[in-house]
């Protein structure tokens, strides 16, 4: 049998990198609450899939996998357009990108998830400078000796 790709990095190396990119995108999509970041994480998953396609195209010695990545790009562009339009509509009604504000769309009978812990204070928050109060000045200690 002819050994396919006997030198590293072989097909499996690229497949593992693609799988890890996909999994990281999945974790980000599940865990983040900013709608724009959720969509960026979906794009990260698409990158992992694209890497898989290109690796298989190289492995098989034809260009159909690479052609499919072009379709992936077209679908990603459509997805970005629709996603931005949806985010715009949602932002207009709630004035926040937080996806948890839309949890009233949840299934019947599920408890709402409430945020109990308070957010940390902004580190940029500073006391504004204040002037001393105008008026008669504070009493100065009088000198004891008048020479």
């Amino acid at each position, binding site marked *: 049998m002819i050994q396919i790709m006997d*030198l590293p990095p*072989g097909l499996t190396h690229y497949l593992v990198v693609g*799988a890890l990119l996909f999994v990281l995108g999945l974790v980000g999509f599940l865990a983040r609450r900013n709608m724009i970041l959720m969509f*960026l994480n979906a794009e*990260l998953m698409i990158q992992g899939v694209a890497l898989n396609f290109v690796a298989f195209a190289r492995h098989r010695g034809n260009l159909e996998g*690479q052609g499919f990545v072009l379709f992936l790009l077209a679908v990603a562009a459509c997805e970005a357009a629709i996603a931005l339009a949806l985010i715009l509509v949602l932002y207009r009604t709630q004035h926040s990108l937080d996806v948890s504000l839309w949890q009233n769309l949840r299934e019947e009978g599920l408890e709402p998830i409430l945020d109990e812990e308070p957010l940390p204070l902004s580190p940029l928050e500073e006391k504004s400078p204040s002037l001393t109060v105008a008026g008669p000045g504070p009493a100065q200690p009088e000198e004891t000796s008048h020479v």
Partner: protein
Amino acid sequence: MELFAAGQPGLFRFEYFFALAIGALGIYLLLPSPRGKASVAGSIATLGSLGWLCFLGLAPGGFTIETGLFHLFAALALVGAVFLVTQTNPARAALSFVMVVICVGGLMLLLAAPFLMAANMIVYAGAIVVTFLFVLMLAQQDGPSDADNRSREPGLACFTGLALSASLLLLLQRDQDNADRGLGQMKALNAPVAELRLKQEQTLRREANGRPTAPADNTTFLGQTLYTTLLLPVELAGALLLVATAGAILIAQRRPGTEVTP
């Protein structure tokens, strides 16, 4: 070919699982939380897991420029992905996604796909991320917000990621074990498939190191493939783009009565 060569065939190599588990723990620590994230411990765990995976991926074949570039691009892409998942500042996260795109472009170059490298970078880094950055900056709020400084079920999300990545690695490893055992066993199981594969492999022209040759003129051959084998999908993709444009305009229209003043 040597990625999973270290152990017994058919057995799951537990060092991969441990590396993945440490990485999942690191990302759990790094995900934003109102208590503040454990940046130092999380970074050490994530980087350690990544380094371990890179070390496991190093084959005994020795160092070549291709191996070095592959590990460089793969590690940078994964670091950028971790940044994208864990950054609290969304603008920085978008820029780290650009880093992922550039590194994936490098990997595509290593796989003899220069046209796709350029197209990927132009479409993602040039168009999609810039548009997202515009929207981000229009919608940006000052200080910590619910959207950026809280995570939704970080523990469950990391566990899902660990389960998925471990099962994917297990599948890849099984597949490789089967490939290593050669066509003989496969023939016993499924004769037509094995014959087809053998025929395919004999017709491929190969380079000195056993890889199939890729056409030197990538763009020309890609265009030929697109407009011969993949003609119908090209037309469908054009129709899809048209429908998406119309849909985006329709969705984003202002409708009276839906807006709420803050």
